[in-house]
């Protein structure tokens, strides 16, 4: 299996997937061949959750068909096979994200749990009264609320980096927020509501210069661009399998070994302990210290298959292709005379928009009649939308299996929206 390209500059130079390659790849995704409401299904909601290639579906089925056993607790061969497959998936994910060692990869239920894990372990240990945690105004609720809970509990304060009218992070304001009380910067790599790609390398350098560790919410970056956590030098990185063309119920927390080793356990139970006596228990080393109970074994194996699939296609080529689609979609929406929400210079394949004539739910409903799936609502990023005076947007999101035809279907659907509501 190939490791992800070393840095973003390499991915920029990669050639985009060709239309022929994409139409071949689309055949790997059974759902993309379905019809909806009598039209071919047009799936433009991958930021919410992605579709799964046959390789992932087959990996899940194959595990249950021929390897199913619990992990780390059997002498029998079947359990050994399951353990090898589970730990093999950890190695694949480590390589995919550019982690130094698989021990830095903790399997979680998803991004949400990964962030909560850091808040409840690292956070509880290092954040005290008067301390500060820095997030941005474009965060997903799952990168806000865990910190609010921690702050309430420990008497700390949440500081918010503002964003400008294009939905870009205001870097100088970020720098100004860093001080000797700052204990952590937790920021999204790519915004799910606005599409903004944050200058995370600079954020990390600047935070580190002030002695502050950084958590990156990679839910929307890991599926769409090459990520190399060692290169980025982030302290933590969280992502969700289901957005990476893998199964639901599995996600990843990458943590630098030095952090994971000193962090107390998250949940307690089997699997995470070395020995239990009523006087005292001793805990496993990372990553198993943070994986109490029977994990999502099949899910992890499915995620392993997903990152193999992505590596074979090539993250650099995926990013280059999606960039082209984003440009095409942006032009199309501007032509359709909708208001784009999120117009950052560095943007990922997320098209959030507002129409004066129709509420986002009505837009999504009419599009659904045409077989076009988009998301409508606040995208679990209410503060980000409030910044633009909105409580909801319609959002089309792109993955490498989308085509210009998909975006044309969106454009045609929007014409119908205007006919109905205009």
């Amino acid at each position, binding site marked *: 299996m190939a490791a992800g390209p070393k840095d973003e500059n390499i991915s920029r130079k990669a050639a985009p997937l060709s239309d022929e390659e994409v139409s071949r790849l689309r055949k790997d995704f059974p759902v993309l061949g379905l019809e909806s409401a009598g039209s071919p299904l047009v799936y433009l909601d991958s930021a919410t959750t992605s579709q799964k290639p046959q390789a992932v579906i087959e990996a899940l089925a194959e595990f249950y068909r021929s390897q199913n056993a619990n992990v780390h607790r059997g002498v029998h061969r079947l359990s050994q096979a399951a353990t090898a497959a589970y730990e093999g998936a950890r190695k694949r994910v480590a390589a995919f994200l550019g982690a130094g060692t698989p021990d830095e990869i903790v399997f979680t239920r998803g991004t949400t749990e990964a962030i909560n894990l850091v808040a409840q372990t690292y956070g509880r240990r290092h954040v005290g009264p008067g301390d500060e945690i820095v997030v941005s105004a474009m965060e997903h609720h799952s990168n806000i609320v865990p910190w609010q809970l921690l702050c309430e509990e420990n008497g700390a304060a949440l500081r918010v980096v503002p964003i400008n009218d294009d939905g870009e992070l205001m870097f100088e304001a970020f720098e100004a927020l860093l001080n000797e009380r700052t204990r952590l910067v937790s920021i999204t790599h790519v915004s799910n509501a606005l599409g903004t790609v944050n200058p995370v390398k600079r954020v990390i350098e600047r935070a580190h210069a002030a002695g502050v560790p950084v958590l990156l919410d990679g839910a929307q970056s890991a599926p769409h661009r090459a990520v190399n956590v060692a290169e980025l030098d982030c302290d933590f990185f969280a992502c969700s399998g289901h957005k990476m063309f893998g199964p639901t119920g599995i996600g990843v927390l990458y943590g630098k070994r030095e952090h994971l080793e000193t962090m107390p356990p998250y949940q307690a139970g089997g699997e995470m302990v070395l020995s239990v006596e009523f006087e005292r228990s001793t805990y496993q080393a990372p990553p198993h210290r943070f994986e109490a109970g029977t994990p999502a074994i099949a899910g992890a194996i499915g995620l392993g298959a997903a990152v193999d699939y992505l590596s074979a296609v090539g993250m650099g080529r995926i990013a280059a292709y999606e960039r082209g689609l984003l440009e095409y979609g942006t032009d199309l929406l501007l032509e359709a005379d909708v208001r784009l929400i999120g117009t950052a210079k560095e943007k990922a394949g997320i098209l959030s928009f507002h129409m004066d004539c*129709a*509420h*986002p*739910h*009505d837009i999504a*409903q*009419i599009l659904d*009649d045409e077989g076009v799936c988009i998301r*409508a*609502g*606040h995208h679990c990023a209410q503060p980000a939308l409030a910044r633009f005076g909105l*409580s*909801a947007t319609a959002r089309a999101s792109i993955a490498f299996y989308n085509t210009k035809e998909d975006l044309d279907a969106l454009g045609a659907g929007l014409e119908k929206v205007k*006919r*109905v*509501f205009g």
Partner: protein
Amino acid sequence: MADEHALYQRILLEHSRRPRNFREMNDADLTAEGHNPLCGDKLRVYLKMDGEVISEAMFQGSGCAIFKAAASMMTAALEGKTRREACALSETFCNMIDSEPGDPVDIKRLGELVALAGVREYPVRRRCATLPWHTLRAAFETHGRTRSTA
């Protein structure tokens, strides 16, 4: 439109484009706020009472077309009704919304409100239609409390 959309019927669109009684009432006798946190629909219902009779009903708020039309049609239907009649109508309406597509509807009692029957085929939109009515009941029950339908 040549063929009526199952959900966005002509009357409904008409109400959502130009909602009736869509303004604030400063001297309301009863008022309540309703909110659907799932989709962000939000409104305040105002009632002017003449004894037991609703002499004026108004609303303010923002949300989708279904919601707006439902609120507009509700205020139009309320005028001149007693509190009891309004509650009964609310129940009939909410029962219709909760019924199965194709179930008979009480056109005699519901009048133009039956235009919202199409919502039955779109379960996630049901709350858009019932939020104004739930808020109405909140206005009767406790003056001013926020009603959340989540």
